[in-house]
């Protein structure tokens, strides 16, 4: 049809709506992709035309990925971006639409999108077989009648059942398994909640799928510092960058996607001279009430529960001054003091992370070739990285008590403020010391 072709031609020049799955080792690259004006990262697959699969995805996540692909509307295509992983192991990888190490990612994605819209690349058929989970349809015109209605599974799924409620009014509860590709959580984070209305009755974060040992993650400065001295300037710059990336993701969670791009641009071009910019950013966010409106009183964890867990900014925001850098003579030379806040809620974690980012940049600027000392224990951006565990695994046990009774928006804010990272479980599993011991 002429009209449809004309519209498709017009649409070929639009901003490409991409649902990005940032697997192992790909979060930074995908975040940088979002800065381009010709690509837009969307929140749900129904809004997307391109599924970008980047980095490593463990085999547990291949089925949800296929479900994600099928949830996209026609015309749709998949672009795979291995980023150091083996191409053959990438799910949904086609020979045409892939981003190699020499390709410019934004151009490759927009080229794929344009090819899709102009018909050069055909729209992909659904991957999963067209099988109704339960073909039961009832007898009457609205699905009523027949056997198996009450307590059965109409239209493929059972109906919700009654559950306990703190108000004493027993109504239906919805058990939801949010993730692994929920856009506000890092890929691989699965949140199993039971919701009564908009309150979380019970919530739990499942074990990280990256911990199975399938993945050889790239070694960053923090993991390197476990076995050898690393220049303080390098490690502090990486820490500041991580905190700013967290701030950018948290701003999207709070409904400020445009401001998040500004923070992300700063994170990408960060140098030790930007300490004053980071402080100005922190002041501006306070002025715009970002930490206060979203996080004041939300997600508070008592300091008694956090003692000894060394969870980095989360512990320090609750008043515990635990920081592995304080025991390091190189940092003592540079005049390092841990930044501690009092409240322990999400707003305090905002303040601590941004203040630490500014402090890291100042340390990096002041450093004259000092190297980190403590081999075996490193203060990562999310907490102490030890030989055997990661902050994500230590934090998991605290989450059920934190999430119970929170309204949904507060639960997402609380989880975002904890900066969970399932990939850390993978870096633990792949640690050279563990591999040798195993």
């Amino acid at each position, binding site marked *: 049809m002429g009209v449809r072709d004309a519209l498709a031609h017009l649409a070929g020049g*639009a901003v490409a709506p991409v649902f990005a799955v940032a697997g192992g080792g790909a979060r930074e690259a995908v975040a940088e992709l979002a800065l381009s004006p010709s690509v837009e990262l969307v929140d749900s697959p*129904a809004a997307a035309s391109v599924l970008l699969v980047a980095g490593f995805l463990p085999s547990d996540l291949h089925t949800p990925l296929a479900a994600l692909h099928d949830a996209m509307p026609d015309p749709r295509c998949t672009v795979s971006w291995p980023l150091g992983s083996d191409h053959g192991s990438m799910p949904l990888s086609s020979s045409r639409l892939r981003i190699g190490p020499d390709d410019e990612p934004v151009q490759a994605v927009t080229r794929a999108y344009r090819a899709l819209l102009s018909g050069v690349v055909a729209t992909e058929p659904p991957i999963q077989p067209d099988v109704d989970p339960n073909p039961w349809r009832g007898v009457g015109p609205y699905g009523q009648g027949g056997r198996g209605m009450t307590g059965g599974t109409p239209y493929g799924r059972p109906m919700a059942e009654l559950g306990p409620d703190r108000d004493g009014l027993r109504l239906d509860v919805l058990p939801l398994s949010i993730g692994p590709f929920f856009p*506000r959580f890092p890929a691989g984070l699965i949140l199993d909640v039971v919701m009564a209305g908009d309150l979380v009755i019970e919530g739990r974060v499942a074990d990280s799928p990256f911990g199975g040992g399938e993945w050889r993650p790239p070694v960053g400065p923090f993991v390197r510092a476990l076995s050898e001295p690393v220049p303080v300037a390098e490690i502090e710059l990486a820490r500041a960058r991580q905190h700013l990336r967290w701030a950018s993701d948290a701003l999207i969670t*709070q409904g*400020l*996607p*445009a*401001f998040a791009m500004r923070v992300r641009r700063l994170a990408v071009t960060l140098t030790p001279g930007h300490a004053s910019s980071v402080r100005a950013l922190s002041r501006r966010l306070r002025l715009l009430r970002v930490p206060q409106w979203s996080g004041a009183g939300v997600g508070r964890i008592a300091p008694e529960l956090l003692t000894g867990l060394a969870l980095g900014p989360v512990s320090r925001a609750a008043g515990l001054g635990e920081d592995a850098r304080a025991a390091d003579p190189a940092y003592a030379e540079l005049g390092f003091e841990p930044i501690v806040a009092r409240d322990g809620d999400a707003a305090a974690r905002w303040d601590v992370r941004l203040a630490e980012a500014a402090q890291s940049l100042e340390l990096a600027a002041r450093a004259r070739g000092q190297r980190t000392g403590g081999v075996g224990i490193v203060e990562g951006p999310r907490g102490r990285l030890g030989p055997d565990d990661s902050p994500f695994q230590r934090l998991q046990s605290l989450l059920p008590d934190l999430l119970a009774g929170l*309204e949904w*928006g507060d639960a997402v804010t609380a989880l975002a403020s904890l900066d969970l990272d399932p990939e850390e479980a993978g870096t633990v599993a792949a640690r050279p010391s563990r591999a040798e011991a195993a």
Partner: protein
Amino acid sequence: MDYASPPIALIAVGLAMAAGVYLIAVLDRSIAVLVGAGRWTWRGAIVGPIRSAALLLVQRRRTTERPDSPGWTLAPALLTGLAAVALAMVPIGPDMAAADPSTGFVVFSAAIVFVMIAVFLHGWSPNSALAMHGAYRFGAQALSFQIPFLLAMLATALPAESLSIVDIVDAQEPLWNVVRQPLGLPLYLVVGVAVSFWGPLNLPDASDLAGGTSVEDSGVARLLWKSARAAMLVAVAAMGAAGFLGGWWGPWLPGPVWMVIKAVALLTLLLVAGHLLPRVRIQRFVVIAWVILIPLALVNIFVSGALLL
């Protein structure tokens, strides 16, 4: 003549809504690019929205396993219809309104109130957990903003001694309402943002619900819902210009031009606020609406009433 003939009214309201929706798309993109420290281009800002609309028209419209199809179909149509009714109440010049009943204010408020039904239908119909959650959240938001909305606008009817919008604008000839009722416009803007669930009060379509009531929308359904939301924002801004900023009154330029300038100014203010202010928690908004906004609106009414006597 207190109403235009139906074809003229339909065309005028339709053109105003289409122009307003396109303007919102252009302004929103431009403000997002400026706030995000990106590079603003003519093509991106002016042609970009048209291209994105073309993409949504080409995309297939999805469905879910067991949706309420009539409700899902009706939701964007209802929201657009309500925005059209609200916009039809706003006069663009002296005695130039698509419809000017003697109770125009009540009709406008009725259109605002039914927005809750449209958004709830939109979220409940797909039978999807995240969408339904957005719908119920808007229920709490809508019940909370409606009384402050009505009270904030009611103060403008006091000097006019009438509920007709044309009379309300006429009564502002000596002095605009924003000057003699200073609390009125800020209150109206806050609840106006709540009505059109934009920016800091975008709770039903929130990013922490992966798109909320729009999570299962694709293709023309997504385009129609976005346009309907933008049309509602246009109506809110236009009524704010008429009720608080003096409507068509102003020196040198003809009335309709002033009306457009004032409405666009309010629209820009709301869009900028949408990109700078974070989303408010629903519990916080409910408390603020009942405990702070309602008493402030009542103070506004009684103080301006006392000054009139």
